[in-house]
């Protein structure tokens, strides 16, 4: 991202030639199985996909889930599949804040269902399945022993089991719309599987 010509010019006042298309091609010619994933922000996901990256971070979905408003999340899931199929979707990354500050438990589950049952690359963080709370520097390569969050662990066991189903691995995905019930909330469906995610707020309305 920092070496994209526009970003480089904004940073240094100098224009650099394109780097990634050349780099990706040269590496891929020799190692076709090598995958490129960009830690992308600032609305540069599509640009980086066009420059050869197999996947780009989907920080936007993560941010919208954290805000806990359903509509922006739904709108994001209506983007073209040529774009969504190449998004790496996550609830934790190394730069995100400690898990407890990110999502309350019920919202965490709804957010996980939306994140990992949507198109794209499912990107899980080390310790996510057992609810680790300490942020570990990737340079440290070790961390303190922490208690396992048994409820969360069971939830992820179920989620992973579901993700092994053929429909979620090879099926076609589509956003759909409810006619009644959840006030016209649009939901998502895979062929033969319907995914519904929500968390009831204190006031009784559905937020996420």
């Amino acid at each position, binding site marked *: 991202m*920092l*070496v994209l010509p526009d970003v*480089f010019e904004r*940073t*240094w006042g*100098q*224009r*650099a*030639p394109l*780097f990634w298309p*050349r*780099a990706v091609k*040269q*590496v891929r010619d*020799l*190692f076709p*199985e*090598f995958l490129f994933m960009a*830690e992308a922000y600032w609305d540069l996901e599509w640009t980086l996909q066009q420059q050869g990256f197999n996947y780009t971070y989907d920080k936007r979905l993560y941010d919208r889930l954290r805000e806990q408003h359903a509509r922006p999340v739904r709108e994001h899931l209506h983007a073209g599949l040529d774009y969504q199929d190449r998004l790496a979707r996550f609830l934790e990354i190394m730069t995100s804040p400690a898990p407890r500050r990110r999502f309350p438990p019920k919202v965490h589950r709804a957010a996980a269902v939306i994140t990992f049952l949507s198109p794209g690359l*499912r990107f*899980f963080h080390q310790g996510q399945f057992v609810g680790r709370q300490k942020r570990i520097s*990737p340079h440290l390569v070790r961390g303190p022993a922490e208690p396992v969050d048994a409820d969360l662990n069971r939830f992820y066991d179920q989620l*992973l089991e579901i*993700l*092994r189903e053929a429909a979620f691995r090879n099926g076609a995905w589509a956003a759909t719309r409810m006619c009644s019930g959840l006030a016209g909330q649009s939901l998502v469906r895979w062929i033969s599987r319907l995914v519904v995610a929500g968390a009831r707020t204190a006031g009784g309305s559905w937020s996420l």
Partner: protein
Amino acid sequence: MLDFVPHHMGLGPSRAQDHPEYFIQGSELDMARAPQNYTWVHRKRGDLLLAYGPRPLLRRLARYVATQLRQSATQEVMIGELTRIAEAMRRRSLRHGDAGAARCL
């Protein structure tokens, strides 16, 4: 999985000596305006003023300086590095199977 950032790199002992063109250089004026963003590197063939990378925290750990990607030679060096990484990862993957790569669902 490996985090590759071609925009800046740790300043090795010989890189700035042999290849100052790989790095973004500042002027005395730049240093006067934003001294926190530049560092002097002493060389036999004249001192260089180089721009730090964008992460202030890393500057405390090591001298992370910005690479001059306007130069084709710098781009080639970075692509060479990436190619070596890809080769090493393939060797590792062949040796360890899936254990050496990220688990995919």
